[in-house]
């Protein structure tokens, strides 16, 4: 029997929990392939869902991490395009069959394994997500909502109490809900998949808390931070209002309820659907919403208004605010429709469970997902939430080991005393560090590691489980100091062992600073939620807490200021006041004069009403306005409303400014913006002369894969003489490194606009390092090897120059022995509102990765909204509605090299290094790029003007490659390929690392070394050269931040010229070298980091580095 299948099917934990990696290390490549065959057969026939899933993840891991390590020398193989298309469409089974057939006919190799790995992983997660979705729908009490498809079948009725008008106004139902705080973390064991496969290991201690952002003395204290309001209105619409997001919608069609990305009200809509108010089965029904409202209220002409309010808690708090809000809204809607018995007060246990189940459904509907503990705020006080083994009668029985929904055991005061609760409150400082990151990839990593039982991580998980027991004991004993020790150990031990990315430099710096200031009185750090940097806890000796509250705010603000160019912050850090909430979610019915919505609601609602003639207002609106006017005079929470409303009526205007107070116009002026060129590009874009479709080469272009000998294999090493040539060049000082660092990593931070070069992306050599530091460390190592310091140049742009200069100055160039120069940008572009045709081309004609069914619906709705935005904002017009720096763009890395000539850096470099002749040019995110004497020697010996490095294509390498274009060998950009499938036929991918002969480059530009001092000539010749380079129109995501940590992402159009196109120039002789993947791989997205760390790439790069 296959050893791996035995692991999957065994009931014995000693076998079942064996690490895949450990077993694989004992197997030969042939044995591994045989295991893959067995596993694939097994997963096709096994009737047990979790066995199938584990087999799929085993297959993924073998193909992703084990086969490539043993198979480095394999020849590149094309990945069938049909399989790739299936992958994009999430048709994983079909993709696997195609890839396996290709493997059988063309032979195994790392390339086809990369495709198989992606397909197996995708199918694994798809199977798991399908099971969770099925379980959510199968929960008793949820099923009817999927059957109800016509208003005539609509079964809910509003409670009579809500229809009884008093003082001209309908009563208001208010639900107040605390958020949850996770005390033990427990290695993300609240992920549904984990709880359903390993219920005994899925446990957390979870505390419901009231909260207030700390604003100073005299401010309101903590209260349940989440509120939902519901009332009847005398208008047959569903009115949804988010007080915090300033968004209102009056919905009159069923379709609009299901249109999630149309506005900022997706969470309210998800609650309306998940509560059954408009059941999910109604999606697509064409009847007017008024029909449902009539059946619901029992009268024609009536509607419902639902209002949400979060008490100033910013996004990314790691306190599950959005799930809590969903739960709060659902609870209010369910009370109103009698699905929860009590209209007022708390909930019964079975009702809380129902709300939690509906919140899970709501999250799925909204295309998001949280953990099963996230509705914890619905329950009161401190509780243990734990997985439950599925038993007969459960819908999960026979499918998974555990149930979808966990159990909640509330600790009473006999078990955790009032004194302990008080002590916990007076020790803990709760903060939001300002970072708001997507934890989705982390949850996938956790699931993956769990299923693979990777040795280190599995041990860490068991440690985390033991730590939970420890924390419970400490709570019982009232030893809060010990709790601090436990949560601290949890963070520095198991959490970071399971997921190193849970920590970051910002958090580490905060902890270090706090420890330095508070010494022994700092009892420990406490990580909340998916990752650190946002919501976090710090435990102190209660005597020092008042001081700690003040100091933490100061430390966070100062640290953020130091790091804000390098790390994506969404907001200013804040400190919270908090208190344990012992009630859970609670509702009250506000009647008569009290039947008002929250004060902030009226700043949104009243201005439009003021503009309406009084006679056109409905009677209840008139009564409400009267009551509101009285409340402004009488009630403290309504004081100051008149001023706020006035501000809202007359919004302030003015140019947005940068942090340094510069306007967009000033920045354009300062950076030498070429307005004439911009207007030309704008006109071309609008007229359709340029655009995404026009980036492509003509359809008749003949593009084929390379021939034998077109690219020289350097993976298996080059002749020894090259190394000597290279070393000699190094010793003579004829080589420099040019790192392209003008970019802001739009994919790396999804348009957040930080300097990618400075991003402390990974722990290497014992601490977090930035890309910039890593590149300097490699050059230091090279310099040591050659016995001569290699000059290192970083090209910068308007976005990155000051930050990089300051960073290097503060760190004294990391003690680098040679010259470190910055080559500032001389070109700048102004982003434009995209053309609708380009958006449609990108989203509808280019191959797109489909998302999970519901998430895809949300994405499509978002696309429609963004197309609408582009139309309204004016297609092709200047993009100016953001911070000025977010409106500008660097114009591609071709200019970064050209700027070297224009700004005099090359001339300076040549002055200081007279023998300089060769440049290694590479991207900031090509972490493995370094001067390799062998490769340098090859370049010199060949006498080429430019030698480009390529790598054997893996599935994820999209964006062009090395090809014969109309017979001529060159690099071709993905954007320029006339058909998508051409790319799949290209064996090599461009690593964007080049060896350049300076003199030959100058010659192509019509220049000599002597000309470098003549600015006019350099400018003229580089402009001419630029004119020979194609310009590409691209769409980039740019974030616009607003509110409290809210971010919108807009696609904007910009143009760029790319360095790889230099290989198409006649007169520049080019060579191509195939280099190892670890050298050529570019890190474009943080989600690549985990595999990069696990497959040994990071370790190999560490060996290239010489740290200070």
């Amino acid at each position, binding site marked *: 029997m296959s050893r791996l299948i035995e692991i999957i099917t065994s009931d014995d934990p000693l076998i079942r929990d064996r690490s895949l990696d450990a077993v694989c290390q004992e197997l030969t490549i042939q044995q591994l392939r045989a295991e893959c065959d067995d596993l694939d057969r097994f997963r096709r026939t096994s009737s047990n869902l979790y066995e199938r899933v584990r087999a799929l993840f085993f297959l993924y891991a073998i193909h992703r991490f084990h086969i490539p390590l043993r198979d480095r020398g394999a020849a590149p193989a094309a990945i069938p395009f049909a399989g790739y298309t299936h992958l994009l469409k999430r048709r994983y089974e079909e993709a696997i069959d195609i890839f396996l057939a290709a493997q059988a006919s063309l032979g195994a190799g790392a390339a086809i394994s990369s495709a198989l790995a992606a397909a197996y992983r995708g199918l694994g997660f798809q199977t798991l997500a399908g099971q969770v979705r099925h379980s959510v729908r199968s929960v008793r009490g949820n099923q009817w*909502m999927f059957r109800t498809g016509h208003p005539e079948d609509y079964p*809910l009725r509003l409670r009579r109490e809500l229809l009884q008008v008093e003082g001209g106004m309908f009563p208001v139902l208010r639900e107040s809900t605390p958020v949850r705080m996770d005390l033990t973390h427990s290695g993300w064991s609240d992920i549904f998949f984990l709880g359903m496969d390993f219920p005994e290991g899925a446990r957390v201690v979870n505390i419901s808390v009231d909260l207030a952002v700390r604003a100073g003395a005299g401010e309101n204290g903590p209260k349940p931070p989440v509120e939902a309001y519901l009332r009847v209105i005398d208008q047959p619409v569903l009115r949804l209002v988010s007080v915090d997001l300033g968004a209102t919608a009056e919905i009159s069609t069923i379709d609009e309820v299901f249109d999630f990305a149309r506005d900022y009200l997706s969470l309210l809509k998800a609650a309306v659907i998940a509560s059954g108010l408009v059941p999910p089965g109604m999606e697509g029904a064409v009847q007017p919403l008024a029909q449902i409202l009539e059946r619901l209220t029992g009268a024609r002409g009536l509607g419902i208004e639902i209002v949400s309010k979060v008490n100033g808690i910013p996004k990314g708090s790691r306190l599950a605010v959005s799930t809590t809000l969903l739960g709060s809204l659902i609870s209010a809607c369910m009370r109103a429709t009698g699905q929860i018995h009590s209209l007022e007060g708390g909930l019964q246990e079975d009702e809380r469970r129902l709300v939690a189940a509906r919140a899970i459904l709501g999250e799925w509907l909204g295309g998001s997902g949280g953990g099963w503990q996230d509705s914890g705020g619905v329950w009161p006080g401190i509780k243990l939430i734990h997985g439950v083994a599925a038993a007969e009668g459960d819908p999960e029985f026979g499918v998974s080991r555990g149930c979808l929904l966990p159990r909640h055991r509330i600790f009473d005061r006999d078990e955790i005393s009032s004194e302990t609760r008080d002590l916990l409150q007076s020790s803990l400082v709760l903060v939001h560090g300002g970072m708001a990151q997507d934890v989705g990839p982390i949850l996938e990593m956790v699931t993956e590691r769990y299923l693979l039982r990777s040795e280190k991580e599995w041990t860490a998980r068991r440690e985390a489980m033991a730590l939970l027991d420890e924390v419970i004991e400490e709570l019982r004993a009232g030893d809060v100091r010990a709790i601090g020790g436990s949560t601290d150990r949890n963070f520095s031990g198991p959490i970071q062992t399971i997921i190193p990315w849970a920590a970051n430099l910002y958090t580490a710096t905060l902890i270090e600073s706090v420890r330095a200031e508070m010494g022994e009185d700092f009892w420990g750090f406490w990580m909340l939620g998916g990752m650190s940097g946002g919501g976090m806890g710090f435990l102190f000796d209660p005597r020092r807490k008042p001081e700690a509250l003040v100091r933490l705010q100061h430390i966070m603000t100062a640290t953020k200021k130091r790091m804000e160019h390098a790390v994506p912050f969404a907001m200013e850090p804040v400190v919270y006041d908090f208190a344990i909430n012992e009630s859970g979610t609670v509702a009250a019915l506000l009647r008569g004069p009290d039947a008002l919505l929250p004060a902030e609601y009226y700043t949104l609602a009243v201005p439009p009403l003021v503009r309406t003639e009084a006679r056109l207002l409905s009677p209840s609106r008139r009564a409400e306005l009267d009551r509101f006017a009285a409340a402004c005079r009488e009630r403290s929470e309504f004081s100051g409303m008149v001023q706020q409303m006035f501000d809202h009526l007359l919004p302030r205007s003015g140019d947005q400014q940068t942090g340094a107070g510069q306007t967009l116009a000033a920045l354009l002026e300062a950076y030498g913006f070429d307005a004439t060129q911009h207007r030309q590009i704008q006109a071309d874009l609008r007229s359709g002369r340029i655009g995404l479709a026009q980036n492509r080469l003509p359809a008749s272009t003949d593009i084929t894969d390379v021939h034998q000998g077109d690219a020289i294999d350097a993976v298996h090493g080059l002749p020894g003489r090259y190394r000597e040539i290279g070393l000699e060049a190094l010793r003579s000082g004829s080589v420099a490194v040019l790192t392209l660092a003008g970019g802001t990593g739009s994919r790396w931070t999804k348009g957040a606009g930080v300097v990618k070069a400075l991003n402390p992306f990974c722990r290497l050599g014992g601490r977090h390092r930035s890309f910039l530091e890593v590149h300097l460390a490699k050059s230091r190592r090279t310099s040591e090897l050659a016995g001569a310091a290699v000059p290192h140049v970083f090209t910068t742009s308007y976005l990155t120059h000051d930050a990089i200069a300051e960073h290097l100055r503060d760190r004294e160039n990391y003690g680098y022995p040679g010259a470190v120069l910055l080559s500032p940008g001389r070109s700048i572009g102004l982003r434009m509102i995209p053309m609708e045709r380009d958006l449609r081309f990108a989203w509808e004609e280019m191959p797109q990765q489909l998302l999970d069914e519901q998430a895809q619906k949300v994405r499509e709705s978002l696309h429609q909204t963004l197309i609408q935005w582009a139309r309204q904002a004016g297609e092709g017009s200047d993009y100016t509605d953001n911070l000025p720096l977010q409106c500008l763009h660097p114009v591609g890395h071709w200019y970064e090299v050209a700027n070297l000539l224009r700004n005099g850096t090359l001339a300076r470099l040549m002055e200081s290094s007279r023998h300089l002749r060769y440049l290694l040019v590479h991207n900031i995110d090509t972490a493995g790029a370094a001067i390799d004497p062998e490769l340098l020697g090859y370049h010199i010996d060949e006498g080429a003007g430019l030698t480009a490095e390529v790598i054997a294509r893996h599935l994820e390498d999209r964006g062009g490659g090395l090809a014969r274009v109309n017979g001529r060998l060159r690099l071709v950009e993905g954007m320029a390929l006339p058909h998508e499938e051409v790319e799949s036929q290209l064996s090599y991918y461009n690593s964007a690392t080049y060896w350049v002969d300076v003199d030959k480059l100058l010659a192509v530009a019509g220049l000599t070394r002597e000309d470098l001092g003549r600015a006019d000539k350099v400018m003229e010749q580089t402009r001419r050269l630029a004119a020979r380079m194609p310009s590409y129109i691209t769409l980039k995501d740019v974030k616009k931040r607003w509110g409290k940590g809210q971010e919108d992402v807009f696609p904007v159009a910009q143009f760029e010229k790319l360095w790889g196109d230099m290989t198409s120039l006649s007169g520049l002789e080019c060579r191509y070298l195939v280099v190892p993947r670890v050298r050529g791989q570019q890190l474009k997205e943080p989600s690549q980091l985990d595999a990069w760390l696990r497959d040994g790439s990071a370790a190999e790069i560490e060996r290239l580095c010489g740290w200070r």
Partner: protein
Amino acid sequence: MRFQKAVITAAGPDQRALPLQTLVDRDGQEKSVLCILIEQALAAKVEEVCVVVWPGDESRYLQAAGSYAGMVRFLSQPQPLGYGHALYCAHDFVGSDPFLHMVGDHLYVSAGKPSAAQVVEIAQAEECPVSGVQATRESLLAQYGAVAGHRLPGRHSLYRVDTVIEKPTPTEAEQRLAVSGIRAGYYLCFFGIHALTPTVMELLGKALAVAPSKAVTLSSVLAELARREQYLAVENTGRRYNLGSRYGLLTSQLALALNGRDRTEVLAQLVELLADREMAAGQKE
């Protein structure tokens, strides 16, 4: 156990006029709804009938009872304290005897044996209280009490009742009222005919004593009954028609006519009506 008494409740503020309406019965005779109900009770071999009415309605009801006036007793519900209280108003009439209970705002039409007779026969045979139930779509749950139970072995349409919930939401129904053998989205809801024991009156009395001003539902008392003793539900083959719903009277009348002597005549009239309408529409085009 013999059922000689019947209680019809007709005191609800919104329903009090319904039993007074006149319809053409299956036998082609014009009768008040009240008369039709009394005849169904008599068919179940009941000998005495009590009707609980809104104070002051007695004389109109007496008139509506027509030829049965002599065997019917009218009791008024002094205050509108709900359905349970209305039924309890007949507790002196019932005394320590089992009794048939029917609601006054529904009509029952069955092809075979009248529904009331079916329910009473089973109660007598099983010597326990029995309620008539019917599988009802979840969209109508807001109108009825509903039961959860288990089918008795070997008895096709007979259930042992575990619990009763008044007007459940579909959420609660799905969680607590699912009965195996009943289609998804359908629940066993009361038919409006019950053969009850004096225990029910006793339980009603207790519930009303605890909360005299609160509306007590029959369902809550039947839920308690189910906890105490064997209580069965029989799935009725007939149809019930809610007279108080929109077009309720019209639908009830059609149901009676299409199941009775004048079926052909009524059908012909309906067809004529439809044909006229279609022709008129055709001419307009």
